[in-house]
């Protein structure tokens, strides 16, 4: 969908980089399960995504301390508890110990966006996915995603339109799981 223009030597804090990264995020959400590349951003996929989406208008929870203080300053977000924040960044290897906000019937968009850091995307246990954005079914292989996230997510998205939306990322790649995506876990 987008030409993979090399972002090397451009900063994730600059407009043109953020526009290109956003187009990849857009593709990730429009076509869930698709793997998108952030390796050319010059930093971790996690930080590249946060820099692209966040600013002083939203709040961020970082319960596992994944963001360096100087990056936190540049993001300009206010801090919030994981139960209230619009954005939460978390270590996917650890089981979730909070319930993110799922929005309300009148305002489901306040359901949180979770950025889960996994060990590796593209290898590991395959998730079988179906739903909007997926022609029939698609596979996403993930390594380092604690199974509790999948179980809890099923609860969080069970009362559509309420729900949470997830971005999975490793050091270099990312994929998105909107609340509308159904995960049919493959038997190992």
């Amino acid at each position: 969908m987008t030409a993979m223009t090399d972002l090397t030597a451009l900063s994730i804090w600059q407009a043109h980089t953020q526009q290109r990264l956003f187009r990849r995020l857009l593709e990730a959400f429009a076509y869930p399960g698709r793997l998108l590349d952030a390796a050319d951003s010059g930093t971790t996929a996690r930080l590249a995504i946060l820099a692209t989406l966040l600013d002083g208008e939203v709040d961020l929870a970082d319960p596992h301390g994944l963001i360096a203080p100087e990056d936190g300053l540049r993001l300009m977000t206010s801090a919030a508890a994981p139960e209230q924040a619009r954005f939460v960044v978390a270590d996917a290897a650890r089981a979730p110990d909070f319930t993110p906000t799922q929005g309300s019937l009148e305002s489901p968009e306040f359901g949180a966006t979770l950025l889960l850091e996994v060990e590796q995307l593209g290898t590991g246990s395959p998730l079988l996915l179906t739903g909007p954005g997926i022609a029939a079914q698609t596979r996403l292989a993930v390594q380092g995603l604690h199974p509790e996230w999948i179980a809890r997510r099923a609860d969080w998205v069970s009362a559509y339109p309420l729900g949470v939306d997830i971005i999975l990322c490793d050091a270099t790649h990312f994929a998105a799981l909107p609340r509308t995506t159904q995960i049919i876990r493959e038997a190992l």
Partner: protein
Amino acid sequence: MNNTYELPLDEAGYAFGFMDEYAKKEVRRAILKAICIPGYQTPYASREMPMGRGFGTGGLQLTLSLVGADDTLKVIDQGSDDSVNAVNLRQFVQMTCPGVEVTEKTEAATLIQSRHRIPEKPLTEAQILVLQVPYPDALVVVEPSEARRKTMHGEADYSRLLVKLYEDIVKFDEITISHRYPTRIHGHYIIDPSPIPRWDVPKLHQSKALILLGAGREKKIYAVPPYTLAEPLAFEDVVFSVEDFRDALGNRRTCSRCGAADSFLDEFSDETGKKIYQCSDSAYCNERLASEKTA
């Protein structure tokens, strides 16, 4: 009053894409949530643009938040690249987004902004369609209060809308909604698909391309993701139907310019008062003409 103040006479330096980066970020966040909640009208702060509310500022804010120097942009209004409003918008994007290519060919575009039509040629996964929306809410015809409408949408309570359609049928033996046909997305939210004709509604269903809808004045962004259910409202005995382009003898009218029998036709009268029918989609028409010449 500062008597020493002097107006800067040099051109105001606008950022790439005219909007400031924070405005774009807000739009981008709204776009992602809109995709996650298909058909839901996601509120956003909606900046003023140099063209009037009602002239496509919602679509424009989407385009300006999406577009980059890698893009090839097509802008149409009523299906035509040359309609005055399309020309105005396209020139504005060219002025504020140096490096962006523009095209009239549907298949060459990566980003298409359109008012009131979806191109005849099916879109691909490499394309994004942005539709300009005056009224984002299909329920506005039965409920003026936005707060009450939000509750109805959340609960997917569309009974009053269905009653209105039923009353139409009782009165006229037809569903009289022409454009802005209420369409249910992903089995929940019913959207106003913007003033596209019924002819274009089937293109929303299982589209390969992402479709984004922007209402600038009403400050809403919503989406029909690719490969998603988009079902126009109908009843078992009164099905959804598109516009009828048959003449009195039952023959399907064709475009007087390129001969197409499968496109939405504009109807107008020439100087002698004779009725003329032509493809609304000018690029489609031009392409057919060009291939006829080479054939």
